[in-house]
């Protein structure tokens, strides 16, 4: 917030010092920004880990240029050790999911936008909100710091499957402790979001007048609230296995490197998988629902039309939330579960695709007949649609046992879920950043550089992830240190490793316009009006940027969230927060 504001001292109030204002703030907007900035830093870090992995996959065993000196432990003489590759992979996944996307999409966007959209002065529990961020930060720092442990960070994948994870080096313990902090953070955040949405809605803002973004955050919070605790339980048990010598996840008679393991045994590795996926399937909806929310707002705003089928979208969201708790074992078809079990989970998996398809279809149909403004946020939102479409459709074969036997644990899976989270969710997040930047800072980002950011990113994302689908169908396994070179059946698709890697490094370059745009725009004059996009939802009633307590006048909702191009109105948008001008004729 600008220095100029220090002029208007009001001596009746206490003044906040630097620490209370920026570090230990309880203001949802500051916390939102803290979450978003930290999340983006972690996304960048996770991206860097991935770029290192891509070197090893494209040029297995060749020394990494320049970096050998920086990482003497993992890259002695520049050549990557297999254990280090595993660290990079496990931590890339963990960081991207738990410390990048979720903090940015839920912690960042949710915290900043949700209270504004419902016309609230802040979150219901501001201090809990602060603790949520702090807990996230501690968890994140533990994860980050684990790279500096003598044996390095966790190396058992983001899934941490035992028995390997149980007997892995100390980084895994740090991973578990870090997870407990991240889970605590999510729980505090989820409770806050739910109570805020239920209790602090402005007058007249009934549930079916909530913007779709709020609905998305609402359902997401329920998923976080109810799905994370079982993983927390599992993390405690794995911690006990590692620290107290229990055998929750270790079967009897386990032999490691030719030696019988001295444990009591009697545990079950599959139990971990159940507990893990009971969280992690809802977690993938945590990664995608906020993206739906952002894209819906931007599409309505830039087509100047109400969303097509708002109510069916909301019902789909709710159904999706419920169903996401009963599909988890589709990640475990190859564990030898019985046919009854697998039939059940195949059925629920096919069922859950229906609401996702409804939402995507509604978003696409919303474009029909609109006078589309191709702003940067809209480009990213439009880019999201086909990318999520590919990601979703490639998931169907994985939900059916017959094709999954072939595709399981191949690069096809990597391609599939990255289509959902990378060109999918990340594009939606970019869209949201461009869209709400004027509200957050009072300034506009450059439209031109936004487009320079979009087009190369769009092309490169596809150059990265489409070849992965091909490699996977050819049978190339994921998590291969040498990029699959040992197996003869991969021969025909190995050249794609180089294509993917160069595209991934190119994607990094393509982010430079974005990073510059993000920071340099902060130095522009504050010219953004309260409602620069001529939008209808309540956050645009607050000044840009909003002050403490958010609104300068009492706000209420007088109509639904997307009253664009209402016949008979003088403007093509009728904000939710403007009282009706003339008495509305009953129909």
């Amino acid at each position, binding site marked *: *917030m600008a220095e100029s*504001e*220090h002029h*208007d*001292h*009001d001596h*009746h*109030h*206490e*003044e*906040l010092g630097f620490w209370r*204002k920026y570090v230990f703030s*309880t203001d949802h907007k500051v916390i939102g920004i803290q979450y978003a900035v930290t999340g983006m830093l972690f996304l960048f870090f996770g991206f860097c880990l991935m770029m290192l992995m891509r070197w090893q996959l494209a040029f297995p065993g060749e020394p990494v240029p320049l970096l050998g000196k920086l990482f003497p432990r993992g890259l002695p003489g520049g050549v990557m050790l297999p254990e280090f590759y595993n660290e990079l992979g496990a931590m890339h996944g963990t960081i991207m999911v738990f410390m990048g996307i979720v903090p940015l999409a839920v912690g960042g966007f949710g915290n900043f936008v949700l209270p504004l959209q419902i016309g*609230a*002065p*802040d979150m*219901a*529990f*501001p201090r809990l909100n602060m603790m949520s961020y702090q807990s996230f930060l501690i968890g994140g720092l533990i994860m980050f710091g684990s790279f500096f442990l003598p044996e390095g960070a966790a190396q058992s994948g983001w899934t941490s499957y035992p028995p390997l994870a149980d007997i892995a080096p100390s980084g895994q313990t740090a991973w578990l402790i870090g997870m407990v902090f991240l889970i605590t953070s999510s*729980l505090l955040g*989820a*409770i*806050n979001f*739910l*109570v805020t949405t*239920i*209790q*602090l809605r402005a007058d007249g803002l009934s549930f079916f007048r909530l913007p779709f973004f709020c609905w998305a955050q609402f359902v997401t919070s329920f998923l976080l*609230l*109810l*799905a*994370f*605790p*079982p*993983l*927390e*339980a*599992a993390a*405690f*048990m794995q911690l*006990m296995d590692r620290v*107290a*010598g*229990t*055998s*929750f996840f270790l079967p009897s008679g386990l032999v490691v490197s030719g030696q019988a393991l001295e444990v*009591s045994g*009697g*545990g*079950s590795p599959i*139990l971990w998988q*159940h*507990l893990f996926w*009971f969280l992690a399937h809802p977690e993938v909806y945590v990664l995608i629902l906020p993206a739906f929310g952002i894209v819906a707002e931007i599409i309505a705003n830039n087509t100047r039309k109400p969303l097509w089928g708002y109510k069916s979208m909301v019902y789909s969201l709710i159904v999706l939330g419920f169903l996401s708790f009963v599909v988890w074992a589709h990640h475990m078809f190859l564990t030898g579960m019985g046919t009854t079990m697998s039939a059940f989970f195949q059925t629920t998996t096919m069922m859950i695709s229906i609401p996702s398809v409804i939402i995507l279809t509604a978003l696409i149909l919303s474009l029909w007949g609109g006078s589309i403004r191709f702003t940067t946020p809209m480009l990213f939102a439009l880019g999201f649609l086909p990318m999520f479409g590919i990601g979703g459709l490639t998931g169907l074969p994985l939900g059916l046992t017959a094709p999954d036997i072939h595709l399981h644990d191949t690069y096809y899976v990597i391609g599939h879920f990255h289509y959902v989270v990378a060109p999918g969710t990340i594009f939606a997040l970019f869209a949201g950043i461009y869209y709400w930047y004027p509200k957050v800072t009072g300034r506009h980002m450059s439209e031109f550089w936004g487009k320079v950011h979009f087009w190369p990113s769009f092309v490169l994302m596809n150059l990265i992830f489409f070849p992965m689908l091909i490699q996977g169908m050819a049978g190339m396994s994921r998590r291969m240190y040498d990029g699959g070179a040992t197996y003869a059946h991969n021969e025909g698709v190995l050249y794609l490793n180089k294509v993917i890697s160069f595209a991934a490094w190119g994607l990094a370059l393509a982010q430079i316009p974005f990073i510059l745009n993000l920071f340099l725009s902060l130095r522009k004059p504050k010219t953004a009006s309260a409602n620069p996009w001529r939008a209808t939802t309540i956050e645009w009633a607050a*000044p840009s*940027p*909003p*002050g*403490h*307590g958010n609104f300068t006048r009492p706000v209420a909702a007088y109509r639904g969230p997307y009253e664009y191009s209402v016949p008979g109105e003088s403007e093509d948008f009728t904000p939710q927060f403007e009282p009706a001008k003339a008495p509305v004729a009953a129909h």
Partner: protein
Amino acid sequence: MATPTVVPIDKIIPHTVKPREDTGLNNVKIGIWLFLASEVMLFGGLFASYILLRVGADRWPRGEEYLSIPWATANTLILIASSVTMVMAWASCIRKDFGKYRLYMGLTVLGGLGFMIIKYIEYTSKFHHGYFPSTNTFLAVYFTLTGLHALHVLSGMIVNLYFWGPGAKMWHTEHERFTNRVETAGLFWHFVDLVWIFLFPILYLL
């Protein structure tokens, strides 16, 4: 315009004390119920694991082979009694009888303390006999579940102790808000009690 000055946030957030009309609840009440829902999932995950491990085991000891049923029965009674005194403490808030409130809240904390002491005796006697979490999966389940539960008892005690001592200042300044807080702490305490009512038969009797 953001001003660097501040109104205490509790003053500008609606429904911190008084219920919202259409939901009929205040913020804290919904918050604690949601929190308890997540706790149900936490212990639910552990109970489910217990069932899976037990079903998959070749042999599963009966609780009495390792554990002391008399001590656990005593603990069950203590926790139930402390739940009762917790309700009385809350009722004293409503009746505005500060002396009684202090008494009942104090008894509730003491109940928690009694529970923890017995737990301590039980744990040390297990260790004495050479029974550790690593001994077998039954004891692993026992120590993990009761350990996590004991942590909950401890947190509940800390909260209650705070409302018994320094937190009670609010009794005089914002009585209604204080009553809400005691009620919330009570809901948590009853939940902790309830978890034990499940743990007792599952671990000791079955």
